[in-house]
């Protein structure tokens, strides 16, 4: 069994945070975040393009743009050793074919191991517990530097109502 409360810090790769995505479209943002995970060595031997392609394929089945300016593109990968996430921010907004048809400003790319549904579900629970909070979404959207996003992640772990 996993510990009951997984924290954001347990799976968000702080060094892979991209405070200002260069990409202007969904696929570009996914490639950028997968590349960011690869750059810090989080993906191990998995190629970032392979991850991005799988995530895009998943995204084409149904958008993970849940509305309110956030999207959580994700995929399970057999070779991923643990669950990991990269956070990206776009000040311009990106079309993610979101449920509310509005642009997405905050993107959390989540990669989970293929054989551990519980870890994936716990990470999702964690992400959505915070994304539910208007304040969290607002702070994330206003953040302009990696440090500000790291502070937010740390604070969210301390404060369950954020």
């Amino acid at each position, binding site marked *: 069994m996993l510990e009951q409360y997984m924290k954001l810090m347990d799976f968000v790769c702080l060094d892979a945070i991209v405070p200002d995505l260069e990409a202007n479209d969904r696929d570009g943002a996914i490639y950028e975040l997968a590349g960011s995970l690869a750059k810090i060595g989080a993906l191990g031997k998995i190629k970032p393009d392979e991850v991005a392609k799988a995530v895009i394929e*998943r995204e084409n*089945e*149904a958008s*993970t743009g*849940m*509305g309110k300016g956030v999207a*959580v593109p*994700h*995929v*399970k*990968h*057999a070779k991923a050793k643990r669950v990991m996430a990269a956070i990206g921010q776009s000040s311009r907004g990106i079309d993610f074919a979101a*449920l509310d048809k509005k642009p997405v400003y905050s993107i959390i790319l989540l990669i989970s191991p*293929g054989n551990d*549904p*519980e870890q*994936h*579900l*716990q990470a*999702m*629970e964690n*992400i*959505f*517990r915070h*994304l*539910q909070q208007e304040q969290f979404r607002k702070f994330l959207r206003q953040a302009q530097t990696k440090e500000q996003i790291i502070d937010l992640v740390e604070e969210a772990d301390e404060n369950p109502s954020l």
Partner: protein
Amino acid sequence: MENKICEKEVTIGNADGLHMRPAMQFVDIANRFQSNIQVSNNENTVDGKSIMQMSMLAATVGTKLSISAEGSDAEDAIEALRELVEDKKFDEPAPDQEAGHSEKK
């Protein structure tokens, strides 16, 4: 119109549990009904019509969820949702069917 309250306990039967795709199927069906629908595990009670809230249940295979519906179509809503979770298992494999199941999600 007559307001009914129905409640039913269901058990998650698909191997991957209530991840985003099944949660979306649930929310889609819940939204077809006028009734107010709430879903709870032991810790949280969430709105069965909200994808973000449903994703917070983190229900693994074997988890029991209590679905409650309140409204004129409460009974039909509960039955449709029970069928999705227990009979159809979100059109996903149960744990013992996992062998040979290629990873797609």
